[in-house]
């Protein structure tokens, strides 16, 4: 028995030695990859659901409530915010080692403002209609707390890749809330969806316009800002309801697991 193990041992040792030289790197790499994957997954979950800037952090409420009367407007503002958020997060993360801590906020604001100016000029050039209907709320992206919040809380402390991914996910989360709110308000207010999508996406997009219900008279409350507040309240309530439903279901599973163990012990 002992000899067998002794004879076997070296081979195993050899194997382990062989793998040892490679394994740490591979293991570390796979671990790091796993970590990275987990981190990205976590970032995505945080941005889209758990820490959604629109629904949970309630940041950037002003544009959220003001311009979401139609899906098209919401999509336009959502895309603009997304673009600015990704660019600003990347830039802030890239220069994070050279920014003095004392004056970081003005620097972040300058970076965001320059990107907003770019987006504004681009929209002025290519999607003039939506540029006009968004009005003041396009330049006001500069003051959107969701963007400076991400720059301060995440981008200024993390590497470029993660920071830009975080910007993408947070921007997507914000844009999704905008679109859902826009859809609710447009259906209730005018009975249509994607009305005026051609202003944003080009002439082909006129086919996107769907008339959900034909309304003789507009439901003005849904189009006016108070309707946005009420609809937003309902969306947040729905999100909380889903969360509490998921929470309720989880402990039941663990209860069952404990019961099984007890049964095994008894038997």
């Amino acid at each position, binding site marked *: 028995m002992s000899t067998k193990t002794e004879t076997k041992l070296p081979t195993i040792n050899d194997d382990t030695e062989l793998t040892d030289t490679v394994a740490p790197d591979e293991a570390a790499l796979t671990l790091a990859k796993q970590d990275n994957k987990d981190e990205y997954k976590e970032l995505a979950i945080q941005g889209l659901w758990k820490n959604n800037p629109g629904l949970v952090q309630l940041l950037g409420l002003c544009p959220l409530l003001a311009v979401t009367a139609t899906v098209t407007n919401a999509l336009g503002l959502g895309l603009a915010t997304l673009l600015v958020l990704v660019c600003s997060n990347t830039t802030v993360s890239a220069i994070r080692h050279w920014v003095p801590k004392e004056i970081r906020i003005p620097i972040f604001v300058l970076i965001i403002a320059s990107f907003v100016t770019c987006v504004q000029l681009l929209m002025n050039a290519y999607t003039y209609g939506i540029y006009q209907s968004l009005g003041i709320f396009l330049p006001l992206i500069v003051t959107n707390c969701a963007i400076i919040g991400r720059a301060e809380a995440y981008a200024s402390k993390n590497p470029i890749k993660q920071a830009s991914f975080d910007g993408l996910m947070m921007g997507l989360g914000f844009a999704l809330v905008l679109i859902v709110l826009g859809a609710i308000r447009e259906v209730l207010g005018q009975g249509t969806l994607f009305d005026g999508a051609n202003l944003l996406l080009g002439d082909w997009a006129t086919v996107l316009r769907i008339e959900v219900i034909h309304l003789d*008279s507009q*439901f*003005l*409350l849904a189009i*006016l800002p*108070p309707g946005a507040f*009420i609809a937003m309240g309902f969306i947040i309530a729905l999100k909380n309801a889903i969360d509490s439903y998921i929470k309720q279901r989880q402990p039941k599973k663990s209860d069952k697991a404990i019961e099984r163990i007890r049964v095994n012990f008894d038997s």
Partner: protein
Amino acid sequence: MAFWIASSPHNHSKAETSALMRLVIYAVLPGIFAQWYFFGWGNIIHILLAITTVLFCEFIVLSLRNKKNIRKQLFDGSAILTAILLGICLPAIAPWWISIIGAVFAVVVVKQLYGGLGHNPFNPAMAAYVMLLISFPLQMTSWQPPLALMTIDLDLANTLSVIFTDFTKEGYSVQQLRTSVDGFTMATPLDTLKTNTGLGLTVFESMENSVFGEHFSLGWEWINAAFFIGGLVLIAKKAIAWQTPLSFLLSLFICSFIAYSISPDSSASTMFHWLSGGCMLGAFFILTDPVTGATSTKGRLIVGALAGLLVYLIRTFGGYPDGIAFAVLLCNMAAPLIDQYTRPRTYGHQTKEKQGEAK
């Protein structure tokens, strides 16, 4: 054996919510009858529509909230009273979906989402009315003239047909119903007065319009008088406190009296303000809502006076002809604060000033 020692107050009034609500509903009846007499079946149809919707919505929300004893809560009368008040406020020939949307909003959003009866910060009927007025300005301002002035006979079948299809059986539209013999669209007295004053006519000149009738405003004066009588009954039965309506009416009287004595050409008389629009309904049935109004005696006086001032200001300077609903909502918002500063002294405790003297 332990003696059961109750804390004060020892004298309870045995009134239940449902009994109180039933009394208020009975007191509204003369007003509804007057409305029926002058404006036809429209309001009664809207009241019935609203009651059906309200009960349906209340049942759904209460079962969603896993409430026990749904039947008792459903028929405690509060929802039905809300529906009745909403139905009274609507223009008689408004389309059917107006009262349905209003009733759903009143019960689901204004009442139940805040926690149900006793927890709503705003009067459900008035909040729903304001929502409708803001959302559907055209339908909500299409008041028909009193039946006596109408060129088209508006019986029950015709009213039903107008409410559900927008046209009478003979094919007249809402707009045609509102047109007088000489081709003008007739509006409510308050609306007419507002438009005419805007055009530069004096009050006396506009008073010659037929909607004003012989006295102040045809039909409306009797409706308001009926609500006034109902309100007096409620006060006599101690269902509502007298402070709110009194200070409301006094405040409106004083405001309009000052304006009328300064410039009688451009301001309506005090009695016109009292007897037109929803003045009496607001004073006795809406401002006195025990849930959303003030609770202390002083607080009620202040809330009533504030509401009177607001109604006068909105009627005279605002964009809408009548301001009861807006004034009520604003006062509902202010009521908790007013209550906090007018809390009565607890028996046995000293007031702050006296405490200072004692020290």
